[in-house]
């Protein structure tokens, strides 16, 4: 027995020693270079794109590899649900991919933590990066402390979606028989009441994530009314309760819920449920981004844009106000600890050409360039007209701060308490301001 135990213990010790040695050797990002410097360099590229849309990225990568035969790129696609967790865990261990997509709320925190390489030189080199072609606000998102840490990959916006059949059913049509879409909040509320009488849901909003209130539900209406959640100056203080536009937008949604025009389950309404209700003619109006179209095509292939549903500008608070919306988007970063920073930056520069970004943006987002939507395929598709209307007045609902996740989660909590539970809007937004200013931004 003692002999067997001793032998078993030695085996375990050898296994442990072996795995420790392997762990020591595997630190750092992918890449291998021989002592001659001319062998193939292998980079790891990580994206959150689903399988359906990753094809365009792989085409860009294949083109780059053809032009750069000594650089090979392995693609790693992480599911969106735990993409950030996967990356942060890798970075904290000193590893992680060489080039990767960065969700814009993470830029500040990841730059502060030293995970992102400084791309200022690349961004200022006009031979590699055409800075003047990009939407300035998107470049600003990738800037921290005056340095460029990420480069824009895409952007998006939310517009107003309406069910054509339901509008015709309740008689909300113009003289040509086309749906008479609401242009103001008051019109939207009146229309929602008509849909309720007809036995369908008038309006639904997403509430399935910590970002839903800020980006999908309250945010677009808040933007049309000039509202703010954090002040956009250097102090970045929470001012939701003092911002008339924000109070009005939260009150609008609260009134819709009180009027009984929204479906049940609004405490955790996800995109799939909303789209299913929309496509089955049970929901008349909602807000959504360009990604709803492929989602609807999957849920109901016969439910078509133009005939069965349409998109329009986000209704405004008062007639004559400018339409607006929330926008976000992804950025591209390079690992500050990449074993092959030169090769990684070379690929990033290639990836970030307006032509490549135009190809990538087709499936559910927009190119981050000033003239992106005025080019094919967007310019010839009437689906994108409202997006072109709202984009010039769109922006992040929360200015970039390192604690964006906490601020967003706090806004979700207090806004939903007002909207879903009927609590006082001003009390909830005041509580939000107080919590964020004292315990989130102040730490």
């Amino acid at each position, binding site marked *: 027995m003692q002999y067997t135990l001793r032998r078993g213990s030695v085996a375990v010790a050898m296994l442990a020693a072996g795995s420790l040695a392997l762990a020591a050797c595997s630190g750092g990002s992918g890449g291998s270079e021989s002592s001659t410097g001319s062998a193939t360099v292998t980079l790891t590229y990580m994206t959150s794109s689903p399988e359906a849309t990753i094809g365009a990225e792989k085409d860009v990568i294949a083109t780059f590899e053809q032009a750069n035969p000594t650089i090979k790129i392995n693609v790693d696609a992480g599911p969106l649900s735990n993409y950030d967790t996967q990356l942060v865990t890798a970075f904290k261990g000193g590893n992680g991919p060489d080039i990767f997509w960065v969700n814009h709320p993470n830029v500040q925190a990841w730059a502060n933590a030293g995970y992102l390489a400084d791309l200022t030189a690349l961004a200022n080199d006009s031979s590699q990066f055409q800075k003047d072609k990009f939407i300035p606000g998107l470049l600003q998102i990738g800037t921290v402390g005056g340095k460029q840490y990420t480069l824009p990959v895409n952007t998006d916006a939310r517009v107003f979606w309406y069910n054509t059949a339901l509008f015709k059913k309740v008689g909300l049509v113009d003289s040509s028989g086309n749906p008479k879409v609401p242009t103001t909040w008051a019109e939207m509320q009146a229309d929602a009441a008509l849909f309720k009488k007809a036995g369908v849901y008038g309006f639904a909003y997403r509430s399935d994530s910590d970002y839903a209130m800020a980006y999908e539900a309250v945010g677009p209406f808040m933007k049309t009314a000039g509202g703010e959640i954090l002040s956009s100056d250097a102090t970045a203080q929470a001012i939701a309760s003092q911002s008339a536009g924000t109070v009005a937008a939260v009150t609008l949604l609260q009134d819709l819920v009180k009027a009984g025009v929204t479906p049940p389950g609004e405490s955790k309404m996800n995109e799939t449920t909303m789209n299913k*209700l929309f496509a089955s003619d049970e929901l008349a109006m909602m807000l959504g981004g360009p990604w709803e179209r492929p989602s609807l095509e999957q849920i109901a292939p016969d439910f078509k844009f133009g005939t069965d549903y349409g998109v329009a500008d986000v209704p405004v608070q008062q007639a004559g106000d400018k339409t607006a919306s929330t926008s976000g988007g992804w950025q591209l970063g390079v690992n500050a600890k990449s074993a092959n920073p030169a090769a990684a930056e070379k690929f990033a520069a290639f990836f970030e050409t307006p032509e490549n970004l135009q190809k990538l943006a087709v499936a559910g987002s927009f190119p981050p360039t000033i003239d992106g939507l005025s080019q094919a395929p967007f310019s010839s598709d009437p689906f994108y007209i409202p997006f072109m209307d709202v984009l010039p007045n769109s922006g992040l609902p929360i200015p970039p701060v390192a604690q964006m996740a906490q601020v967003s989660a706090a806004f979700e909590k207090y806004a939903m308490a007002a909207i879903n539970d009927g609590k006082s809007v001003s009390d909830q937004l005041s509580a939000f301001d107080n919590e964020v200013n004292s315990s989130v931004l102040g730490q």
Partner: protein
Amino acid sequence: MAAVPAAIALAMVVYPLAFNIWQSLHVERLSKNDGQFAGLQSYSQLLQFGGLLDTFRTTLLWTVGCLVLQSLIGFIAAVVLDGMSRAASIIRALLLVPWVMPGVAVSAVWSTIYDPISGLLNSVLGSLHLPTHDWLGDPKTALASLVLVNVWKGFPFWMLMLAAGLKSIPQEVHEAAALDGAGYLKRVRFVIVPMLRPVWVLTTLLAFIWTFNYFDLAYVMTNGGPNGATTILAFDIYQSSFVFNRFDQGSALSVLTFLTMSIAIAVYFRASRRLGGGAS
């Protein structure tokens, strides 16, 4: 030769614990100040701003609610099946199914049952002309709804443990009680329950440790909401660390959880020694 198991224990238990404690005493929030000593700042921030007491209260409500109902239903199932012969083994195997299902699968199934628009529960209530409800969306009913799911999942464990305890009660005790004129309910109350006490206590302590740390349901079904109504400690640790990048606060919560569990484990070992020595 004790050195190898000690080394493994050191690597897999002591080091992670020590690192957690270290991280809770330093700034670790993806900031430029990461690594700076912060003392008990994370703990005081949790108390002051983090809703720590609310989270502890929710966790205790969750744990006690689950244990009481699981033990009651598990006991009834064990007693009923004890009186059956052939059918008992088949029924017992079927009743074990919820317990062996992964927590995520259970969460997915019950999320569809609770769905306020198309879920089975509201469909049944509607067909009986009873009021329907957004069970997971109402802060007043969300935690109770999760407790119900965990009771469904966890009572088979109690059934198994108590059934084993029932088998250890000598038949002569039952016969003596019957001879003394004790009916079935009196035998349950004065014979079975007292003699099951050692099993009950040990199962309670084990189940307390598991339930206190249970994460799956709160994460999948409610994401800690609505309005924090189902934010239990395990979920709070996840949210602080991986959603808010507040690794320092997440570690502080982990240390507090570890201290609570240490007390529970110490009570368990003490009870098992005392009851193991005293059980007849």
